[in-house]
């Protein structure tokens, strides 16, 4: 597609349920990022995929969070046993290989845990 696509746009879930958030990066982009942003706050890095390298998971806040990227394209962020503090916008971004390339963001997935 023309841009980074994320789904769902909005998700309301009950505490304790699992959720999956999907990111469809720009075709051909080798790098894919997940960030989290709580209301009125900055972006918190979660996980980074670069080509076939092992992902950088250093930002995942707990073992309830995981992500995978299948076929070097679509990525899914999974949050198990959701907690209220997981409520945030989850932003995905991608960019072409090489330093200095622009990173393109999706519109984000609003997650509300009630």
């Amino acid at each position: 597609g023309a841009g980074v696509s994320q789904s769902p746009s909005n998700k309301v879930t009950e505490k304790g349920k699992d959720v999956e958030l999907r990111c469809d990066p720009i075709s051909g982009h080798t790098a894919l990022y997940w960030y989290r942003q709580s209301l009125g706050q900055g972006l918190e890095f979660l996980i980074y995929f670069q080509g076939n390298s092992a992902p950088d998971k250093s930002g995942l806040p707990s073992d309830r969070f995981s992500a995978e990227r299948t076929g070097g394209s679509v990525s899914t962020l999974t949050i198990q046993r959701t907690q209220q503090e997981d409520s945030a916008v989850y932003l995905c971004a991608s960019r072409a290989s090489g330093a200095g390339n622009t990173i393109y963001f999706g519109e984000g997935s609003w997650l509300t845990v009630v």
Partner: protein
Amino acid sequence: SQQGEEDPQALSIQEGENATMNCSYKTSINNLQWYRQNSGRGLVHLILIRSNEREKHSGRLRVTLDTSKKSSSLLITASRAADTASYFCATDQLNTPLVFGKGTRLSVIA
């Protein structure tokens, strides 16, 4: 890890005035990027400045970079109400994730 910190946290100006936002970071970088965010949704890339550049212009935007002070500034000239948004700087190194600051919330009053 490296981190961009924007200053001020919030800025309110009149339409037509210039807005200046600053960003400081901690470690060496390949480049620094500025982004804009409306209403808590996706970020839009504004401008990238490489570590060997000192100043860059794009329309009403002017970015400076001082690697000796590990700081950058974003100037928006002749501001408009439509410039109201949050502005983030992000530091960039090869094969590492962009690290964002907490942003500056700019309000331009018509």
